[in-house]
C-alpha cells in the first residue's frame, strides 16, 4: 500500500516532466525581438520568412486539403525560393521562405491549439491557414487576437462575412454563397428551367447555399418539386435520387461536399437519374472526379465556382501548366488550386508592397491595395475579395469551363446535359 501511494506523485511528476521537456522554453536570443516595440527603426536581423500552417494531413479533411490547398502552397514556396525568396525592403534583401506544417487531424480543437503554437511558440511570421469553413471560423478569433493577417481561400459562409468588423485580420478570398447563388438563379432562368429538385447537406455550407438558391428560384416561378436534406457521412442516397427521378425535374441542385457529391454522381448513374441541369456544389471541379467517373460520364455536370486557364488573367495559363505538372493531370482542383495560389500571391505582393514583415502594416496593405493574380485583379472590400473568375463551372471535353456568370464564361453551356453513357 505504501509503495502504491508513493507511486501517485511519482506518476504525476513523470507526467509533468514529460510536458516540461516537450515545451522547450524559447531560446534566450529570440526574446528581445518580441518584446521590442514594432516601431523600432532597425528591425532585428532576419534571414528567412517563417510561415506556419496547421492543416488536415489525417482525418476526413485530408483529401480536400491536400488536393486543393497543400499542393499549390508547396508549389508556391518552391517557386519563390527558386528565385531567392521574397524581397523585403526593410531588410534590403530577398528572404527565402520556410514552412512549419502541422497536422490538425481534421479536428477543430487541435486546429486552434496548433495555430496558437505556431504563433506563441514558433513565432512564425505569417500563417497560411487551414482547410474548410469550420476551421477558418475556429481560428478567426485567434488570428485576430494576435494580429496575424490571413487570407482564406477555402471558406464559404455568409455568417463569417457578416462579422467582418469584428475580425479585421481575416480576409475572405473565395467567392461566397450569395453571389454564386445569384449567378445560378440567373443561369437557370435563362435556360428556361421550369421544375427543380434540391438536396443539401446538414451543415453551414449546405444550408446557406440552398437558402440562397431555392427560395429565389421559387419566387421566380420555378416549381420546387422536392427539397431534401441529408447528414454528413451519409452512405446511401438512392431513395432520395429515386424519388427525384420519379418527379422528372428539369434541374437538380445539390449543395454538399466531395464525399456526398461523388456518392450522388455514382448513385444517379445507378438509378438513371439524369436531369437536364445537374449541379453539385463542392468537389465537382476536382480532376479526381473526372478520373473516377471518366471524362465522358461527367460531361455536362456543373459545380460551384469556376476558373479556367483560358481566362484573361496574368500568368493563368502558365500557372495551370505548372500546377498540372506538380500534382499530375489527375490530381488538380480546377477551382481551388487557382484560389489557393492567388491567396499566397496576395500575401507575397503585400509583403513586397508594404516592404516589411510588420503584420499590422501588411494587413493594412492587403485591405487597401489591388493584387495581380491568376484569378484576376484581387481587391478587398470589408475584407471580402471582390474579384471573381466565375460562379458556375461545367465539365466539357475533360476540362472544367466557366459557364456562369455569362460575362465571365469561357465556354457555352451544354444544356440539356447529355445522358449517362451506357456501360
Amino acid at each position, binding site marked *: 500500500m505504501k509503495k502504491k501511494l508513493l507511486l501517485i506523485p511519482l506518476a504525476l511528476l513523470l*507526467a509533468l516532466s514529460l510536458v516540461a521537456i516537450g515545451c522547450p522554453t524559447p531560446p534566450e536570443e529570440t526574446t528581445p525581438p518580441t518584446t521590442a516595440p514594432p516601431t523600432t527603426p532597425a528591425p532585428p536581423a532576419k534571414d528567412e520568412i517563417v510561415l506556419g500552417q496547421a492543416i488536415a494531413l489525417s482525418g476526413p479533411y485530408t483529401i480536400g486539403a491536400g488536393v486543393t490547398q497543400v499542393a499549390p502552397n508547396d508549389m508556391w514556396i518552391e517557386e519563390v525560393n527558386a528565385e531567392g525568396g521574397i524581397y523585403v525592403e526593410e531588410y534590403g534583401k530577398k528572404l527565402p521562405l520556410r514552412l512549419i506544417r*502541422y497536422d490538425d487531424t481534421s479536428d*477543430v480543437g487541435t486546429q486552434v491549439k496548433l495555430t496558437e503554437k505556431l504563433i506563441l*511558440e514558433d513565432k512564425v511570421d505569417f500563417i497560411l491557414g487551414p482547410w474548410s469553413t469550420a476551421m477558418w471560423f475556429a481560428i478567426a478569433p485567434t488570428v485576430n487576437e494576435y494580429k496575424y493577417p490571413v487570407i482564406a481561400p477555402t471558406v464559404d459562409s455568409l455568417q463569417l462575412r457578416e462579422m467582418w468588423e469584428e475580425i479585421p485580420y481575416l480576409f475572405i478570398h473565395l467567392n461566397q454563397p450569395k453571389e454564386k447563388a445569384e449567378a445560378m438563379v440567373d443561369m437557370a432562368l435563362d435556360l428556361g428551367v421550369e421544375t427543380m429538385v434540391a438536396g443539401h447537406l446538414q*451543415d453551414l455550407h449546405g444550408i446557406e447555399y440552398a437558402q440562397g438558391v431555392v427560395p429565389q428560384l421559387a419566387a421566380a416561378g420555378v416549381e420546387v418539386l422536392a427539397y431534401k436534406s441529408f447528414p454528413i457521412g451519409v452512405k446511401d442516397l438512392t431513395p432520395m435520387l429515386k424519388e427525384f427521378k420519379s418527379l422528372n425535374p428539369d434541374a437538380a441542385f445539390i449543395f454538399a461536399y466531395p464525399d456526398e457529391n461523388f456518392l450522388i454522381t455514382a448513385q444517379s448513374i445507378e438509378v438513371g437519374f439524369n436531369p437536364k441541369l445537374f449541379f453539385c456544389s463542392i468537389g465537382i471541379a476536382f480532376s479526381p472526379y473526372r478520373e473516377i467517373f471518366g471524362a465522358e460520364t461527367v460531361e455536362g455536370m456543373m459545380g460551384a465556382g469556376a476558373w479556367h486557364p483560358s481566362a484573361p488573367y496574368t500568368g493563368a495559363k502558365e500557372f495551370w501548366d505548372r500546377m498540372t505538372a506538380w500534382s499530375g493531370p489527375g490530381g488538380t482542383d480546377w477551382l481551388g488550386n487557382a484560389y489557393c495560389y492567388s491567396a499566397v500571391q496576395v500575401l507575397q505582393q503585400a509583403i513586397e508592397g508594404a516592404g516589411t514583415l510588420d503584420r499590422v502594416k501588411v494587413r493594412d496593405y492587403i485591405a487597401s491595395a489591388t493584387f495581380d493574380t491568376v484569378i484576376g485583379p484581387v481587391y478587398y472590400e470589408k475584407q471580402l475579395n471582390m474579384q471573381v473568375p466565375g460562379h458556375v463551372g461545367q465539365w466539357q471535353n475533360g476540362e472544367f469551363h466557366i459557364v456562369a456568370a455569362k460575362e465571365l464564361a469561357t465556354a457555352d453551356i451544354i444544356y440539356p446535359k447529355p445522358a449517362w453513357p451506357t456501360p
Partner: protein
Amino acid sequence: MDIIGGIFKRFRVPRLIILILLILLATLPLYAPGYTVILLTAILMYIILTVSWTIFSGPTRYISLASAAFFGVGVYTMAILGKALPLAAIISIGALVSFILALFIGFLTLRLRGMYFIIFTFGISELIKHSLLWWETNMTGTVGRWVVRVDHDQVYYIMLAIFVVLMLTAYFIRHSRFGLALKSIGQSEEAAAHRGINVTLVKVVAFAISALFMGAAGAIMATRWAYIDPRIAFNPLLSFMPVMMAIFGGMGQLYGPVIGAAVFTYLAEILMTRFAYYYMLIFGSVLVLAILYLPNGLIGLLQKWRKRGTAEQQAST
C-alpha cells in the same frame, strides 16, 4: 503512537510532493511560455475525461461510449448561454445537465450489459448529435455557433480546478463503501445484489458523477474552440479517446488513467507537430504495440520495474 507514526510516514511524503506539484501547476502561467499553458489545458481536459470515465467504467467494467454525449452537452451549454451568464454559472449548468442526462440514460440502460450497453451508449451520443443537426437544419435554419472567447490562463485555471475536484472525488469514491460496492458489481453483479447492494442505484449514481465532470470540462473547453457545430461537439472520437487512454495508462490505480491521458495526449502532440506526415501511422503502431506488450498499461510496466528493482535489492542484501 506507532500507528500514528506509521500513518505519518505513509502519507507525509506523497502529500508534500502532491502539494508541490499543485503549487507548480497553479503558478505555471506566471513563468511558463504561453503555449505550455494551452497544451497543459488540453492535457488536463483529456485527463478529466479519462479519469471520470474510469470512475464508472473502471471498477464496474461497463464500457461506456457516451463520453462524447456528456462532453458535448457541456460544449453546447457554453455555446448557447455563453453571452448570457457568468462563466462559473454556465460551467455548473453544463455539469448539471450532463449529470441529469446521465441519470436518465443510466436508469434507462444500466439494466443492459456487455455489448448491448456499449452499443447503446455509443448510439445515444450519435442520437443527440443527429437530433441537434435536424433541429438546427429545420428549425433554426443554421448549423454552427460561435462561442465566447475566454483568456487561456483563465481556461487553464478552471480546468485545473475541475481536475483537482475530480481527483479528490475519485480518491474518496475509491476508498469508500460506495467504491467497494462498484468494485463488487464489476466482480459479480449477482453476488453484489445478493449482498444487499442496490446495484442499479450505485451504477447510475457513479455514471452520473462521471458525466458531471465531463460536462464541466466540455463547457470550459468550448471557449477554446471558438466555433462549434453538432459534429464538432459530439465528435465520437471523444468517446473512444478516454477508453484508449485508460487502457494505455492502466486502470488498476487512480494514477493510471492520469498517466495514460497525459502521455497519450503529449505523444499525439509531438507526432502531429514533428512528424506531421506520419502522425497516424506512428500513433497507430504505438497503440498496437502498447496493447500487445503492455496488457496492464504503462503503470503495469512501472510496477514490473519496481518489483524487479526490489527483488534485486533483496537479492543483493
